[in-house]
């Protein structure tokens, strides 16, 4: 079957999708966006977390056919998503109506080539500036093997969108569905606290 939906602000089309396929599979294998990780395929680990119409969900548990006409943001589009949010003062997705228009969003090609390029780095001539949460993960040393990182970034970004100064309890609860097998949780908590503090300063 064919599925049409918005990925990182741009309209996309996936063809020959098997009816039992997950959104995660479509993103990784059909659209070439491997940022969302495939680990448990049963919603246990959170590595595949994406925003579906603004809501954080495990993309491995969303049937591809269910995203027809809907709006998905993956970790590849997170920096742009967070920039748009800062500029327009709204969180959540662009909406099914495609309110973001053509100039926003990340093209599939750009998303495929996305690389983490810290702001202020002399090497940074191109690419997208990191979002607050992404930069905080680097600065706090919250990335070890990195496999859980994309899911954590999407989920933590959603937390900070809802709650700009979360308590430790809030952070733990928000990230309770994201497993880190390196068990680097303390640094991850540090990163979220750091991002919250930096967000607070910016306001």
């Amino acid at each position: 079957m064919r599925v049409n939906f918005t990925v990182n602000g741009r309209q996309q089309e996936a063809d020959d999708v098997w009816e039992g396929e997950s959104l995660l599979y479509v993103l990784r294998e059909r659209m070439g966006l491997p940022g969302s990780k495939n680990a448990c395929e049963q919603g246990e680990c959170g590595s595949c977390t994406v925003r579906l119409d603004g809501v954080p969900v495990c993309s491995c548990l969303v049937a591809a056919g269910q995203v027809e006409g809907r709006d998905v943001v993956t970790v590849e589009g997170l920096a742009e998503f967070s920039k748009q949010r800062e500029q327009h003062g709204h969180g959540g997705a662009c909406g099914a109506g495609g309110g973001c228009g053509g100039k926003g969003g990340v093209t599939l090609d750009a998303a495929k080539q996305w690389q983490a390029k810290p702001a202020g780095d002399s090497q940074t001539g191109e690419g997208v500036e990191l979002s607050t949460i992404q930069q905080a993960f680097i600065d706090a040393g919250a990335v070890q093997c990195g496999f859980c990182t994309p899911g954590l970034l999407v989920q933590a970004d959603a937390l900070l969108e809802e709650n700009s100064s979360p308590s430790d309890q809030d952070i733990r609860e928000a990230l309770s569905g994201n497993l880190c097998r390196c068990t680097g949780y303390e640094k991850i908590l540090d990163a979220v606290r750091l991002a919250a503090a930096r967000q607070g300063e910016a306001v």
Partner: protein
Amino acid sequence: MDFLRPASWEEALAAKAEFPTAVPIAGGTDVMVEINFDHRRPEYLLDLNRIGLLREWEVGEDVVRLGASVPYTQIMENLRTELPGLALASHTVASPQIRNRGGVGGNLGCASPAGDSHPALLAAGAEVEVESVRGSRLIPIDEFYTGVKRNALAADELIKTVHIKKADGPQQYSKVGSRNAMVIAVCAFGLALHPQTRTVRTGIGSAAPTPIRAKAAEEFLNAALEEGGFWESGKVITPSIAKQFGDLASGAANPIDDVRGTAKYRRHAVGIMARRQLVWTWEQYRGTTGRSLEGAA
């Protein structure tokens, strides 16, 4: 496999009538796991995400009519006052990402004895509104669970809403697991005091082939509270009543040994949860503690 995408409830009922083997999928938190692991290859998937009415709820005078696909997150955020037991139970479901997708309709459709919402529904008192092209009917929650992962739905029926009695007194819910998130219940217990009718109701999860009520425990407690004049006086529950209630709840459980726990442990834990919840809810009823009606999961 065919993917059916009805745009309306009527279309969904028509599709289910035409393809009775179609597996309804809403949040996907059970169905997709089975498909991902090749445990299930349904001929038809019936997507319910486009049907808005399933994500709505309505607070009436006596009952909340909860759409089958209202995600647990919404229940936690919006229905804590009306459905405190179910809100507590919702909070114990998996993780935020799962709670953003899963809902009570899926829990009922799957009818796993370990489903988190069942004890809360049994304790509060509920009816499941199911519909087919033939018409609709209300199934009392006590008659809904018919076996391990089996329910009273006919092949052409879909779950539309769950009519849950609004709390008229304190409610509690506890779940035993090896950690606080992402865990299937080892066992669970729910208790609701109903001061209007001077009755109590219970629900036990994961400790019998289906979710069940601890009826002997309820009957004992109803009689003990009545005889002792507890509802009027609001006096402290005696330790012997609490113990007897816990023992009877424990006796109602009919668990098995499995990877998550032994039958003996489950029986023991159900008794402890029942006893503690009786004290918590009763203290709340007496209004002597700061523990809020909403509880804290």
